[in-house]
């Protein structure tokens, strides 16, 4: 059993799983508390559209996926601000647009489309060292962001208008949260895929929220649940030869259900 740890691909998968648990655990808290859960779906489909366009134009599909998903995450905040509509509505508009672009591109591609679909389904066991370095970099940056601007983030969660009136640069914080969420989601698409990332983004922080009324504890529990889901998924995938992504999602959903049952006993 331990022999598997000596294989490079499994080491990468293990580190990738932990990084996904930490990164998505943190941005998941943001997404849940800002009430924009579908940002994960919109960004992953923007990445899919980007990779399809990349294949069509003969440009590196992964690079194009990153460009498209970052563009989507950068645009949500300012468009919501300009239009006066909720960020959720803009996320819906961007989602439908990138889906349209992706399907159009798929119709035009003559050759194989595997690389584009990999982003939708994910393949944790094929993670490269390059993926790991990128993920580690962005995860470290997100941790620093929470450490140094945690109090401002807390104010934005509480009430954006009050935050502004209290002299807090609310727009900078809100836009940064959206952008960093997009970045983390995009870089983790290879790990568990666009279709499944939604659960890993929502289940761990939601389970954590059920168990605590303290924001710091919510971050820690969310990270813990994220790592637990990823590692358990990976282990089951190895032991029973089942898809890792799907197992990760089932484990994270079970953690949510167990948290709900535990909350039922503790009141509030």
């Amino acid at each position, binding site marked *: 059993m331990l022999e598997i740890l000596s294989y490079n691909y499994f080491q990468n998968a293990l580190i990738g799983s932990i990084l996904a648990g930490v990164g998505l655990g943190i941005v998941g808290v943001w997404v849940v508390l800002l009430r924009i859960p579908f940002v994960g779906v919109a960004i992953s489909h923007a990445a899919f559209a980007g990779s399809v366009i990349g294949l069509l134009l003969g440009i590196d599909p992964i690079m194009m996926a990153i460009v498209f998903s970052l563009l989507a995450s950068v645009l949500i905040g300012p468009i919501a601000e300009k239009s006066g509509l909720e960020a959720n509505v803009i996320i819906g508009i961007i989602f439908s647009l990138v889906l349209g672009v992706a399907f159009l591109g798929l119709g035009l591609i003559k050759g194989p489309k595997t690389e584009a679909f990999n982003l939708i389904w994910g393949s944790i066991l094929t993670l490269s060292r390059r993926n790991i370095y990128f993920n580690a970099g962005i995860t470290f940056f997100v941790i620093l962001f929470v450490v140094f*601007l945690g109090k401002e983030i*807390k104010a934005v969660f*509480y009430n954006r208008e*009050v935050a502004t*009136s209290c002299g807090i640069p609310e727009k900078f914080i809100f836009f940064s949260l959206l952008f960093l969420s997009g970045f983390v989601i995009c870089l983790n698409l290879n790990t568990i895929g666009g279709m499944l990332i939604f659960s890993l983004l929502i289940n761990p922080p939601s389970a954590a929220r059920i168990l605590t009324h303290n924001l710091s504890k919510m971050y820690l529990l969310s990270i813990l649940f994220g790592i637990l889901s990823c590692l358990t998924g990976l282990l089951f995938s190895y032991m029973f030869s089942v898809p890792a992504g799907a197992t990760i999602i089932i484990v994270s959903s079970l953690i949510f259900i167990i948290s709900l049952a535990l909350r039922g006993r503790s009141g*509030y």
Partner: protein
Amino acid sequence: MIKIRKVSKTFGGKEVLSEISLDIKKQDFVAIIGPNGAGKTTLLKTINGLLVPDKGEVRVFDLDPVKSGLSVRKKIGFIFQNELILKSVPLSVRDVVCVGRIGVKGLFRKLDGGDFASAKKAMDEVGIMDLENRPAGFLSGGEQRKVSIARELARDVEILLLDEILMNLDPASQMEINSLISSIYKKHKLTIVFVTHLLRYLPEGINRVVALKDGKIFGDFSPRDFDPKDLAPLYGINEENLKKYVGNFKL
């Protein structure tokens, strides 16, 4: 302290403020009244720079609150209409009161003992020390209003803008919040602008009533020359109906 000169603001083709001019002096305790859509909230938001006037000029501490932005806003407290602490947000009462200290502290600096002491003092003054560790989203409407007041007190502001803070409260809570605002005014010598619909429940200490109608100043009354009868045309109702609504109140 607050100078408003010929300020106009239009939303969706409707002029909400129309060439309004108003001076509010240091330690004034002003009630702003008027029917729905008169421009009361818009006026408050132009004072702290949350809204940019289309025409005219607003000066607070001799500065433009839009251009000076955060530095002016740090001295202006604002409690919004229908401020609600969502149950989904995991913040305690202490966390929410400390939000008032965050802008004062500035970016990249952690709140320290001095900030927590200010928050505690504010909670004590408002009478919510026993709620300190409770999840803020689970409080009653009256308790949440007190938390908002403590948040602004913790900021050591010089001006307090209160936008219909009695809305959706039962009469006992309305009276309690009013007496709290009056005692804060007396103790801290703040400049307070108090927007309200509840003419029967004006807090003690108000030294001026400014009535707005259709984005214009309808009347600017001092307690001595104020007659509730003047308000009948403001709300477009006859004196008898007005009396039923406001009773025989006097400033």
